[in-house]
């Protein structure tokens, strides 16, 4: 039986939202997606963790997690019960440059759900017991993270890239020391100053047929206030380092490597996305084929380029058998030298994957809401998605190689490793790598 050929269908487009502004200033992006009976909502607050007082870092996370424990109208957990009765589930995250509060719910129940969501946003009770409980939960979560080799390597890389003095270099959800200092007053003050309506965007996606959206959004009409916008400065470049965090009992070396790069508005961005896929994003990427498929050093190598608010980041990483980790890192860094430029076939495969997988990556209402909210959080319009897919078609293999070499200098790539230093350090030195050991 001969191998079948593949026919490629027409272009896919990210849907266009209906954009409106509520009286209080909040922007609303409404995506009407017929057939999507489970709707998704995302409220994006463009607040930065740099606004957290340093001694109570983690307060943004505690405030977010406490918000749906009780409201003035429905205290003691009743608000969550009412949301559950509507089939709604909320989720959220407080990251470096935004706080997101979102949820999923049956689309036809959106009016009732929006009313309850508005209560969570506008009048959280922040009962003392709830604040104390969530402070404890975050402290426990910190202890769990520092026991996890993956998080340890990730945090060590952030520390190297941004430094201890930058908020981005420190744990997003605080440390036991800063969390222990968080009081109910801090939480209330954070909510009052940072959860402000005029700066926020609400993304709603789902089957909105027959829904009176104006009425559904009425509870948030009066949400006002401004001032939460963070500074737009890019992170300052720091010298590259190789850091080895000693975890004596670890049975693998977890390697995270990366550097800051240009971001989504740079003319090379599409070329970089293609390069990232070809070198470490795909299953058949250069590094995964070499380190996993050929050598069996790892369960997998992954990475690529991620856009941040104004700049971007290149990342590559994986977990490796301890006795081959130094060789793996050497090969990984050598691979970033791009001794052989990307071939036309590699770039064509990357284009077909990144463009072709878009309809799958945007299949559900929550996919659309999540993608739109990422853009809303950085002040982009959702049309960026279509512009980006059009741009992905253009670069030649030569341009992709040139972009990668311009923006990723192997000697400017920092590396963080978590694992047993006793074994790893001598092997790394023998491989010509000189790690700074952190115990």
């Amino acid at each position, binding site marked *: 039986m001969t191998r079948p050929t*593949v026919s490629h269908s027409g272009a896919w487009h990210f849907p266009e939202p209906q954009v409106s502004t509520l009286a209080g200033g909040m922007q609303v992006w409404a995506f009407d997606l017929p057939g999507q009976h489970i709707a998704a909502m995302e409220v994006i607050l463009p607040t930065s963790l740099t606004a957290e007082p340093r001694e109570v870092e983690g307060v943004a996370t505690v405030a977010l997690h406490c918000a749906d424990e009780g409201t003035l109208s429905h205290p003691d*957990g009743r608000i969550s019960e009412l949301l559950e009765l509507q089939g709604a589930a909320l989720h959220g995250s407080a990251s470096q440059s935004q706080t997101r509060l979102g949820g999923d719910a*049956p689309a036809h129940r959106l009016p009732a759900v929006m009313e309850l969501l508005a209560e969570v946003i506008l009048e959280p009770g922040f009962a003392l017991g709830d604040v104390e409980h969530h402070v404890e939960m975050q402290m426990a979560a910190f202890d769990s993270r520092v026991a996890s080799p993956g998080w340890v390597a990730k945090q060590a890389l952030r520390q190297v890239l941004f430094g201890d003095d930058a908020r981005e270099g420190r744990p997003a959800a605080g440390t036991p020391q800063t969390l222990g200092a968080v009081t109910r007053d801090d939480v209330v003050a954070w909510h009052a100053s940072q959860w402000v309506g005029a700066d926020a965007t609400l993304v709603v996606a789902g089957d909105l047929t027959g829904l009176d959206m104006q009425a559904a959004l009425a509870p948030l009409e009066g949400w006002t206030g401004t001032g939460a916008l963070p500074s737009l400065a890019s992170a300052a470049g720091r010298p590259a380092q190789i850091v080895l965090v000693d975890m004596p009992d670890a049975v693998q070396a977890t390697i995270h490597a990366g550097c800051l790069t240009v971001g989504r508005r740079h003319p090379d961005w599409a070329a970089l996305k293609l390069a990232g896929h070809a070198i470490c994003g795909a299953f058949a990427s250069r590094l995964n084929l070499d380190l996993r498929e050929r050598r069996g050093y790892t369960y997998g190598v992954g990475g690529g380029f991620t856009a941040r608010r104004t700049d971007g980041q290149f990342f590559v990483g994986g977990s490796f058998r301890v006795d081959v980790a130094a060789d793996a890192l050497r090969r990984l860094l050598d691979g970033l030298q791009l001794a052989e430029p990307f071939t036309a076939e590699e770039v064509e495969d990357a284009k077909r994957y990144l463009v072709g*997988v878009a309809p*799958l990556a945007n*299949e559900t209402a929550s996919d659309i809401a999540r993608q739109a909210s990422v853009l809303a959080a950085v002040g982009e319009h959702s049309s960026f998605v279509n512009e980006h897919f059009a741009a992905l078609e253009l670069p030649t293999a030569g341009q992709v190689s040139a972009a990668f070499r311009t923006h990723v200098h192997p000697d400017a790539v920092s590396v963080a490793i978590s694992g047993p230093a006793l074994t790893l350090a001598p092997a790394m030195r023998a491989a010509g790598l000189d790690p700074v050991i952190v115990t």
Partner: protein
Amino acid sequence: MTDGTRLDYELAETTLDNGLRVCVQPDPVAPAVAINIWYEVGSYDEDPSRTGFAHLFEHLMFQGSRNVASGEHMALVEANGGSVNATTSTDRTNYFETVPRGALDLALWLEADRMSSLAITEANFAAQREVVKEEKRQRYDNQPYGNLLELLVAQHFPGDHPYGHLPIGSMQHLDDATLDDVQQFFSDWYRPSNARLVLCGPVTPEEAFELADKHLGQVPALDRPTHTASSEPSLPARNITTHGAVPHPLVYLSWPTPPAAHDDHLPLDIALSILADGHTSRLHKSVVRSQRLAQEVHAASLPHLRSTSITTLMARPTEGITTQTTPDALREELHRFAEDGPTGEELARAVAQYERDWLLQLATVEGRADLINDAWLTYNTPTHVNTHAAELAALNEDAIRDAVRHHLVAEPSHLHYLPSEVSS
């Protein structure tokens, strides 16, 4: 579909001449077509002295066949804008890809080529064995509480029971595996009569059956293999204390519960949601919020197709409270629940949450194809995806109470997982 009781997906079934069962769920507006094959073989079918083999084999299915080079299967699907992967559980091995409609022909050809032939070399066999060992280290051995599941399973199944080990297997057994074992495993289990193919997406049943027959219909027919009969493990409830490099003391209560297809499975799931899902749950309100004996309580179940499943309740005790104290409070609440059952509102909340999760899983062609195959293996009919929501809507408070009364009131096994420096 806004009312879960009226789900009505079109499902067309056929069996090819070689015994391969095929089900098509046409969805003309879906962005791509999901191809989902479940081979009815998992860690249950392994020799207990050769564990991890079904999963190792899953990796080898990507290492080449008669007309496909090593790694080419994944690379081809990705390069055509698709996603592809595979998973192994106790009872099945699942291979799936989701591709643009124009690549369906190619995807079925790829599946047919590896169903009918293997082309593993000593070199890529050796590399994949190392890859699987790194997967075990990354997912289990290098994680806090990484051996938890293994300890829980050992509390309920003797080591020589088919469910007495995890799909990831043991390092020693992986090291001992040979290329001959691989060929034998393929011959024993990878045949059309032991597989179910689900297609979901913009394809008509006629087109799908024709394409399936064109490619997979060419694989030679072999008798359907049989599975070892399973006994009830009948281990008594046991208490174990273990220490490790972990951040917190935890206690797990666990019970043997009915197999996946049993009528009590759904009411038990709903009961666990009412008892331990989130901050509105019974146990959170009582044991965490009111009595302050724990900081968090969670429930989970590990369903098995051919023997008892395992249901667990986990608690992380409050600072100053030992793992010996918290279980009494949990069991007291369970007894109360077994007497009084849930309130009408508790049941309504749990049903609304379950229904949303269920509809979300069905919202993608990949998720839907997988649920159809799950229904097919578990309930012997793919149409269970259409009736499941109605079963949910039909539950009442008594059914939920009875499920707890029958399955979670008995003495559970206790597993105390403590940081190395904590003595009890």
